[in-house]
């Protein structure tokens, strides 16, 4: 044996190990860069081997993501990433599967796969880059664009009432639902970490600035003072408060969530966030506090509950079938049941 092969050196895995050799081709200034950096820096923390990670995307600027991750990856077709990823998850429960999609890719053409993936609760971490625009096709409005948006396809303003992605995910039975924003790496990582650990589907809406076709869409939240005054950060087990002095808070009243002055109602009336609540109504009510980032907007983990993941249940069912019937025997299968013999002619 030659030298150098004998000793196993514990190599520290770093962010760099997750950077692929492909040139990143987003516009300078695009919010996608920050998210990529965050995800690359998260990977070493997870302790999962690079070869056991797969990133799957559809089509869109955001969907170029997998090329830049030094893991396995599939850049599929428009809207179909959850479907492709579900096949990987079902076939290979040993893998860690991530989906990267856009507001067009994941909510317009791919909306159906999205809601079905969420209700089935596949083991998928789904990052929805919401820039409220179609970037790659050069700026048409998307299902998350605000009403009245002037774009190439809507010169007189769009007419569509947008989705609230968090509400939609909750309505589709998602077990983990969160919202973050590209600019704040630390907070993004605070959300991605539990998402990565979640069993089942984790849906994370990430507000992402497209500085070419929809610049400044999230300025309210990311501007100076925005974090305090316009981000309602949800923390499990804590009172839901925001504002520079935490002077504003949330109460539940007659079936809905409302913003109040803490001083007006008293701190004890202020709701405590409970992301593990079985019933998604609480999370849903919180999601209705804002419809798009044009007013104080709840951020963080809305919901995180445990429900069997489809792919795990599939594996259990297969294991049970195996235990019950033994490993399939082709010969027995073919020759079992109603058969008859034609004797050789004599």
């Amino acid at each position, binding site marked *: 044996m030659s030298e150098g092969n004998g000793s196993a050196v514990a190599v520290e895995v770093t962010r760099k190990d997750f950077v692929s050799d492909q040139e990143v081709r987003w516009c300078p200034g695009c919010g996608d860069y920050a998210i990529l950096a965050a995800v690359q820096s998260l990977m070493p923390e997870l302790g999962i081997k690079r070869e056991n990670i797969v990133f799957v995307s559809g089509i869109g600027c955001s969907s170029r993501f997998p090329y830049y991750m030094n893991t396995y*990856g599939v850049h599929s077709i428009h809207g179909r990433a959850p479907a492709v990823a*579900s096949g990987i998850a079902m076939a290979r429960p040993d893998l860690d599967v991530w989906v990267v999609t856009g507001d067009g890719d994941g909510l317009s053409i791919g909306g159906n796969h999205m809601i079905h993936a969420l209700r089935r609760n596949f083991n998928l971490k789904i990052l929805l880059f919401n820039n409220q625009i179609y970037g790659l096709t050069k700026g048409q409005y998307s299902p998350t664009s605000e009403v009245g948006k002037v774009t190439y396809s809507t010169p007189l303003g769009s007419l569509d009432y947008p989705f609230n992605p968090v509400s939609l995910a909750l309505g589709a039975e998602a077990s983990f639902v969160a919202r973050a924003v590209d600019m704040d790496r630390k907070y993004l990582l605070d959300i991605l970490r539990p998402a990565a650990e979640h069993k089942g589907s984790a849906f994370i809406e990430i507000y992402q600035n497209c500085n070419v076709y929809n610049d400044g869409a999230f300025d309210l939240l990311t501007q100076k003072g925005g974090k305090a005054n316009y981000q309602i950060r949800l923390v499990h087990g804590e009172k839901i408060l925001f504002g520079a002095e935490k002077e504003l808070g949330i109460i539940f009243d007659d079936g809905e969530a409302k913003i109040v002055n803490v001083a007006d109602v008293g701190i004890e009336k202020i709701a405590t966030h409970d992301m593990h609540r079985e019933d998604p109504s609480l999370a849903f009510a919180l999601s209705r506090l804002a419809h798009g980032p044009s007013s104080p907007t709840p951020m963080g983990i809305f919901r995180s509950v445990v429900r069997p993941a489809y792919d795990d249940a599939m594996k259990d069912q297969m294991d049970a079938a195996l235990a019950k019937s033994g490993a399939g025997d*082709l010969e027995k299968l073919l020759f079992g049941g109603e058969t008859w013999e*034609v004797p050789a002619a004599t």
Partner: protein
Amino acid sequence: MSTAPVKELDRVVIRFAGDSGDGMQLTGNRFTDATAILGNDLSTLPNFPAEIRAPVGTLAGVSSFQVHFSDHDILTPGDAPNVLVAMNPAGLKANVKELVHGGILIVNSDAFTQGNFDKAGYATDPLEDGSLEGFTVYKIPMSALTAGAVKDMGLGKKQVDQSKNMFALGVMTWLFHRPIEPTLDFISKKFAKKPEVAAANIAVYKAGFNFGETAEMFVSSYRVKPAKMPPGRYRNVTGNQALAWGLIAASVQAKLPLFLGSYPITPASDILHTLSNYKHFGIRTFQAEDEIAAIGSVVGAAFAGHIGVTTTSGPGVDLKAETIGLGVSLELPMLIVDVQRGGPSTGLPTKTEQSDLLLAMFGRHGEAPVPIVAAYAPAQCFHAAIEAVRIAIKYRTPVFLLTDGFLANGSEPWLIPTVDSLPDISTTFATEPNHEGEFWPFLRDPETLARPWAIPGTPGLEHRVGGLEKADGTGNISYDPDNHEKMTHLRAAKIAGIAKDIPLAEVDDPDGADLLVVGWGSTWGTIGAGVRRVRKNGRKVARLHLMHLNPFPLNVGEILSRYTKILVPEMNMGQFSKMLRYEFLVDAKSLSKVKGLPFLAADIEAKIMEMLDE
């Protein structure tokens, strides 16, 4: 005991016809299974409406099942029935015109009421108005006799009514000397959890059998000796079942797990149903939210190292087009099974047709060639499935496997192959870098042009694939014009090269004919029967039936060039004949039938004779 004499017949075609709620498919299948066990050769043709239970008593509601069995080898479910069992006037009206002259007609006379005449559109009672002269008619009050048989068993009126098909089955079992045990077994198993229902069905079945034996109604009973078939163990299979089992076998022979992503659609659903029962073979079945998700999951499973399969029919193929193109671009093995049905659009969903061939060839944007394998007989679906998977795995490509409604639901005896006789279709995954210490996912095998299959979990081979054009070798995104042309040619050459890896086509031409009949798919049996007839007439005709439709076997052009006349019978408007024409510039004439029903041997015979006499 019956004193009726026993007649020996060499072959019989029986058709069961009644309301879609009358259980005709079940009756036909039971009769067929008993016939199979007796060792006859056989072929079946189910025919039912698209509605679950179309209106009772109407022509639209008629469901039928035809079985042809014999003491020699046969190829088709028979052109015209010798025996028609009609459970009601509508069943009679819809089918009697095809009953052979002098044929036997057995009717449930209890159903011949004014109400049912009206529903079926009979102005007068056909049993009385003389219109059935020329047939041997047996009128049996089956409803009443059924009711009598279960009188004290506490069944509801509806349940009693629903078991009268068992009475008919009993009568036919006696009349054709079929064994009763398989049906008794079947009933007991089917109603294992409802013993009282099982008992009632058995009572009715036996009552039918005994009626035949004791009623002295029938002038004779009939026997059809076992066929002289190659020795071995047989079972009766439908095309869908054989196909499902072929996929299981392919998984075993490839030593790879099988992943089925599918969405229900007639007439393909049964493949999904069947495979769902074999989880202990490591088979995953996933009923997706639609056809696009189904094949999407298949792409994922294929990337992850499974044999990815999706099963569907025409409308589903349409929807899968874009993802098949992705599969072509990613060069991953996967199988698309298209059980063709009557189109266009929703068309005739429960009927057969061969009209998706050019869709399989060309139904994707861009230059996206895929191999096509077509099964040609119900049992042969087993081998066709293995062959299709073999090509997919070896050449890392989506493959189309075409069958149709007739193959899917039709059945025939199958000489079960031993596992040893099945091909080894295993492959190897990439495990090492293949280019100067790097892994290049698009560095091809120089012989097959297939790319390496490196699955997640393999350290050091991390790579990304996508639908954008890829640089030859590295697989990185490339917009280079010359590279695009090169890759387009490589993808085409890879598929064309499969021709070297499939058997040469074998033409059947004992006499040195001038006319060649070329077919594909389920017309195999009927063309064979038609050709036989022509030869019996003392005329010469050659035939060629292809299982590989893209690429063609290497010698097809040469074979075609030997004949001055070429006839291509197809259940479409001439799709395969177009392929032969553009590929070989031969004047292939199309014989087209687009009726949702298979050709009759007589159709083929007539056309061949016409062309011979031209």
